[in-house]
């Protein structure tokens, strides 16, 4: 691919980044509200430590400042795709568990799921802009992103849900930071740091 980025591409990237930042900001606010509602509704202790849950992408990263733009986009995309599946699963369990009992929580979950999907799509747009191939989704219809969990008890499912939402809230903050890094123009060549790569 060409090392230099056309001015219009640079503008489009900055535009996508700004919108992405706003999307992620709104998503984070909604996830935080959802977390509060979830904790209360599920009768959990907000300060409970939840061990790393299998299949939940961790936002924690070492040497974050050294990541290339492409790395950031790919890691973000993988994470939100995983969250999309996890939230869909939670929504399903929620409906099973409560039926109509708490439509409010179900609606809030669905709203966040929508934003997660939208954000994943937005990331794909950014990758497309860099003329990067968009990685296929992990597995096919038969095996979903997260492995089907062993039949967990109700309490275990609740804790899992807490872990998912907490990690999603962290990701939302990280995504804002990642997009800000992406939006920075590279000083010398005018390309974004880390995005220009030779074939």
């Amino acid at each position, binding site marked *: 691919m060409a090392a230099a980025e056309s001015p219009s591409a640079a503008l489009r990237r900055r535009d996508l980044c700004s919108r992405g930042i706003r999307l992620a*900001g709104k998503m*984070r606010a909604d996830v935080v509200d959802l977390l509060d509602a979830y904790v209360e509704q599920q009768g959990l202790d907000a300060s409970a*430590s939840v061990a790393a849950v299998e299949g939940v992408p*961790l*936002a*924690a*990263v*070492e040497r*974050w*400042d050294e990541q290339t733009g492409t790395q950031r986009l790919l890691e973000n995309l993988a994470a939100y795709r995983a969250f999309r599946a996890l939230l869909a699963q939670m929504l399903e369990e929620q409906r099973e568990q409560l039926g109509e009992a708490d439509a409010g929580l179900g609606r809030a979950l669905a709203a966040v799921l929508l934003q997660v999907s939208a954000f994943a799509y937005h990331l794909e747009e950014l990758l497309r802009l860099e003329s990067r191939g968009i990685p296929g989704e992990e597995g096919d219809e038969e095996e979903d992103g997260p492995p089907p969990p062993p039949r967990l008890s109700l309490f275990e499912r609740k804790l899992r849900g807490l872990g998912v939402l*907490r*990690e999603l809230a*962290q*990701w939302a*903050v*990280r995504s*804002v*930071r990642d997009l*800000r*890094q992406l939006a*920075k123009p590279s000083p010398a060549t005018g390309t974004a740091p880390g995005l220009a790569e030779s074939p």
Partner: protein
Amino acid sequence: ESHTQYERVGADVTMKCGSMDWDAAVTWTANGTDIDESHLNGSYLILKNVDLSQSGQYSCYEGSSWHLKYQTYLRVGTPPKEPVLMCRSNNYPKGFYCSWHLPTPTYIPNTFNISVIHGTKDMVCEKDAVPKNRCHIRYLQLFSTVKYKVTLTVTNALGKNFTTLTFDEFAIVKPDPPESVVAKPVPNNPRRLEVSWQNPSSWPDPESFPLKFFLRYRPLILDQWQHVELSDGTSHTITDAYAGKEYIIQVAAKDNDIGTWSDWSVAVHATPWTEEPKHLTTEAQITETTSASTSSFMAPPTTKICDKGAVVGSGAMAVCWTAGLVVAAYSVLFI
């Protein structure tokens, strides 16, 4: 051979004169001064209910020869109370620092030991040379949901104590206050004040981790603050200032996404612009005006022309009283 002995305040202390027998004839001194025999039980020195003033050097001499038989340095103190520990990140995302102190002094030397655990990982908190009771840590990971656990243990010869803090990465983020706050009047605008400031120099990367700001201002004569939250930029124009009134202005900062607000910046003072004629009032007119006004301000001695209203805050506060008072007196008349 000299010793050091640590004892608690209020304790009863018995000092033996080295290997001398109980019934040996000895003389004890405290910091060179002979101690009265009433404090002796045989050759043992008995100090009851010791207090801080009894710290010092105690020496025991053989009766007739005045040979020094034993010497000890008595230090009276207390075991440590639970220490006070605070951790904060003012340089996110680089790392954080923890600082500590004892709520009450022990009067004897204390050793502090700090441990930081992130999940299962031990981290090293590097002690700062200055200030002494402080250490700093670099973040190895960012965006972790795993909490940090900091334990501070304080030990001295009379006991030990400890305290623990548990927090997550985002919770302790608190920038330093904004720097170089400047407030200036706007020419030909009697209700405006232009305020500008800079990001705190300790914040390493304001471009990637932008700060948002909170401005508060009020005229000196009122107690109620006005507030403005600003999501970007390091300047703001106040457009609703009371004409001629001296204002006090402060700014605080917060990371755009996480953590808590900084403390307020140093306060700056400024007075909006007013028309020239009032600015150049003669002495006679001032006297006449102030005696007629309802203001409680004193009549200024001279009509000093100065750079009215433009003040730079960074600890130095140059308040321009003279012209300001004249203007204020006029304004009170017109309210």
